[in-house]
């Protein structure tokens, strides 16, 4: 499954870029492009956990896993695969 579209939508709805027409590509680091407020960070982690029914522990709670759409997608796939194995 490709969840990138859902992630794009979430980011788009919760993050406003300085310029209306700015685009975030799947490899853009949206944390580097702008100030990140705690609330957005919390919402992003919360969204991933709820939507995909996975738990993000301290080991995965790394900016590197959340900073681009592609990286976040990798994290979700990795966690879902681990969940599948554990079943």
């Amino acid at each position, binding site marked *: 499954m490709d969840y990138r579209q859902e992630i794009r939508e979430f980011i788009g709805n919760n993050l*406003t870029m300085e310029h209306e027409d700015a685009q975030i590509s799947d490899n853009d680091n949206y944390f580097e492009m702008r100030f*990140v407020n705690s609330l957005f960070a919390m919402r992003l982690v919360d969204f991933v956990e709820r939507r995909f029914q996975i738990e993000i522990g301290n080991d995965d709670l790394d900016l590197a896993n*959340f900073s681009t759409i592609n990286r976040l997608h990798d994290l979700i796939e990795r966690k879902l695969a681990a969940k599948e194995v554990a079943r």
Partner: protein
Amino acid sequence: MERLKDIKCVVWDLDHTIWDGVLLESGDVKLRARIKEVIEQLDRRGILHSIASKNDAELAWAKLTELGIAEYFLYPEIHWDAKSISIQRIQQNINIGMDAILFVDDQPFELEEVKSVHADVQVLHADHYETMLNDPRLMPRFITADSSRRRQMYQADTLRKQAEEQYEGPSEKFLASLGMKFTIYEATEDDLQRAEELTVRTNQLNATGITYSYEELHQLMTSQDYLLLVCELEDKYGTYGKIGLALIHKQPDIWRLNMLLMSCRVMSRGAGSVLLTYIMREARQQGKQMLADFRETGRNRMMNISYRFAGFTQLSADPDGKIVFSHDLKQVVEFPDYIEVCVPERQHQ
């Protein structure tokens, strides 16, 4: 003896409680003796008031206005639903613990109904309302400027919420429309009472869960080795008061952030990371590296995420959930453009 839990909000019934008589039977009800004094005194102590009454909402509110006490009540629940439901709504609106609510009513049935649903709520029969001013649960250790204007701050917040609900468009545009001003300064003696209050009241955004007493804070404030910072936030609707606190242990090459906490009120304002950003920029300017202490309390995950997403890495962790973070400060972020950050001159010399 178990310490009695402080009460942050009193929820009042109306008929036979605030006034003698039943409003729907006679429009000419009179306030009970000294009730206004009780309400006003508690308000000055920073204790909030609300209403849970089975009554006609319009009529009751008009009467409260006529009696000159309507302004004291936040989020009134005046309708025919169960009082346990009213209490729940009030608790959610004010965002405090159930055990921080005192419900006052003249009918044992209502007191019990509320208790049966919310066991943690404290209750008082209306006949004993005159004991309230001497009740230790209603006597906060300090009355600070922030506590005496707490009600106004909640009322300003209601206006903000309404404005936010009516605002269509991206939330950051809305934040920009608030004209927020964030001020950071070194704590002085005058700030310490509020600082103690903040460490006690703040749960979700407290990086270590440690609370400090006035005396401890005073000692740290006057020490050469520590820097105690306070911050305030205001916007076009008024002030949020002093909403954040940080304690930095200054070492030769390192600034160690022993404590960082923010009031929940600023969470939704996108201002939660401003203080941390400021400290990181300041430490970098002075050529330091940073360490930060964190302890999982089960309620402060947002702080954990804030540190990690600000680029802190975990240096060590023990089984109790104590974590030490570090940051090399090679990269520091900018302040958000929707907040004006003010720092008085000549700081931290």
